[in-house]
């Protein structure tokens, strides 16, 4: 079911948020007048300081919470939302959020099991997802036996097992050490290229966002909204050479400046 969309123009808008606001019950305004769109097949980073509402924006897109103002339109209307709906959205949290009582296999099986797909039928998909994150040898291990980076890989495999068209990631690597983070960044890009899915990635790391993204939205806080947009050539190879290149340094500087402006703007 991926094929139809994958062949479509990469610039096609998948969903758009128009004037979206979110005010919580305790009267905290997380978002106000948020305008943004997610385009088919892009790697979009939402970059901003803590408390700028970028995670809330992600939860709105996932349908985990409803906006209190504005609207969220899926390309193709409600029908697409339904087919693009629950099971073709993958969500990765900041913590690995694994079930400690289930093995790696059981954890990755979860989204399929909840959709009524049994162990045997799901087995090829699970094996494939584990292969993609490099954990094929660990299917019978329990979460407590894994390192932080491996747990996060399981979490990503679980999000990939349904072959989602849209992958939402909420600061997934924030708690990992830099070496593990670089490795996971590389692997995530590989997965993105293989699957051809759309990724929305929340982060507060300038370096991470520049390395990964084809487009960056810089958020400002209180109330949260988009303050700047940066595009990075999607054809630019993202490898270790890029990580140490002057282009990368320049892009990071540009992004840092945009972020600094966003934090000053009140």
């Amino acid at each position, binding site marked *: 079911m991926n094929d139809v969309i994958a062949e479509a123009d990469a610039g096609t808008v998948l969903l758009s948020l128009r004037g979206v606001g979110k005010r919580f019950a305790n009267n905290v305004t997380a978002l106000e007048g948020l305008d943004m769109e997610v385009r088919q097949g892009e790697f979009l980073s939402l970059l901003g300081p803590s408390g700028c509402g970028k995670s809330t924006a992600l939860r709105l897109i996932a349908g*985990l919470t409803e906006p209190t103002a504005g609207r969220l339109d899926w390309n193709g209307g409600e029908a697409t939302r339904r087919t693009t709906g*629950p099971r073709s959205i993958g969500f990765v949290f900041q913590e690995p959020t694994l079930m*400690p009582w289930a093995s790696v296999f059981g954890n990755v099986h979860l989204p399929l099991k909840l*959709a009524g797909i049994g162990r045997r039928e799901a087995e090829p998909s699970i094996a494939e997802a584990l292969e993609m994150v490099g954990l094929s040898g660990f299917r019978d291990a329990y979460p407590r036996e894994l390192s932080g980076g491996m747990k996060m890989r399981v979490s990503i495999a679980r999000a990939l097992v349904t072959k989602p068209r849209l992958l939402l990631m909420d600061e997934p690597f924030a708690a990992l050490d830099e070496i593990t983070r670089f490795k996971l960044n590389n692997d995530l890009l590989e997965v993105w290229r293989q699957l051809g899915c759309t990724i929305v990635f929340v982060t507060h790391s300038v370096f991470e966002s520049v390395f990964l993204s084809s487009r960056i939205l810089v958020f400002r806080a209180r109330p949260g909204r988009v303050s700047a947009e940066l595009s990075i050539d999607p054809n630019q190879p993202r490898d270790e050479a890029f990580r140490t290149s002057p282009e990368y340094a320049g892009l990071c500087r540009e992004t840092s400046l945009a972020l600094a402006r966003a934090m000053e703007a009140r």
Partner: protein
Amino acid sequence: MERHLEHSSSRPFPFRWLLPIGVLAALVALWALVVRINNLPPYVLPSPGQVLETLVSDRVVLFQSMLVTLETTVLALLLAAAGGVALALIFASARIVEFSLFPIAVILQVTPVIAVAPLMLIYLSTDTAVLVCAWIVAFFPVLSNTTLGLNSVDPNLRDLFRLAGASRWQTLLRLKLPTALPYFLGGLRIAGGLALIGAVVGEIAAGSAGQGSGLAFRIVESAYRLNIPRLFAALLLISLAGILIYAALSLLSWLVLRRWHESELGGA
């Protein structure tokens, strides 16, 4: 210095389990010595040997009684587990029920069971009254721990279930119950000891009315007859019953949780 520290922490003392047994043996020896030196008659303080003799000679009566007490305790524990979990599930699904009923459960818990027992004996048959006494005290830890467990679900995992379109039933079965399991087992372990206490209290209350045949009744009976060696023998068996129940519940907890829960991963 470092070497010494490492040595003492990484290599467990090989015969550690011998220590409490040694202490216990020393106490028993001291007990025997006190009886021997002061030449105490058995109705004041029997010697360990006399207690053991009584245990053998009265084995039919005593083990029969032990079975009765164990039966009451285990049945009360099973009912407490079933009732506690059922009510905790109702609490978890409807907050309003929790607000209405939880205080009543607390009242049941804080009112000393020994004060309630005579009332039970008026309205219920002796066996039922003893069972209810044991059930009342065992019920609360299961209820409160399981409720705590059901409310301890990882919010991110709950979101994940929502995203995957899980039904209420799936969320209960695959998320809430497994989360609550270690809490429930912890409650059950407390409930096991309490059920025995409740059964003993019930038997003593009933026994003073001249009925019942559990171990606690044997204790009361022996005290009246100044058959102190048998009192000690019965006491020994009650201790043994408590240890058995605790060991069985610990084993259950280990069997269920050993693969994944921190509490059962000692030394792994």
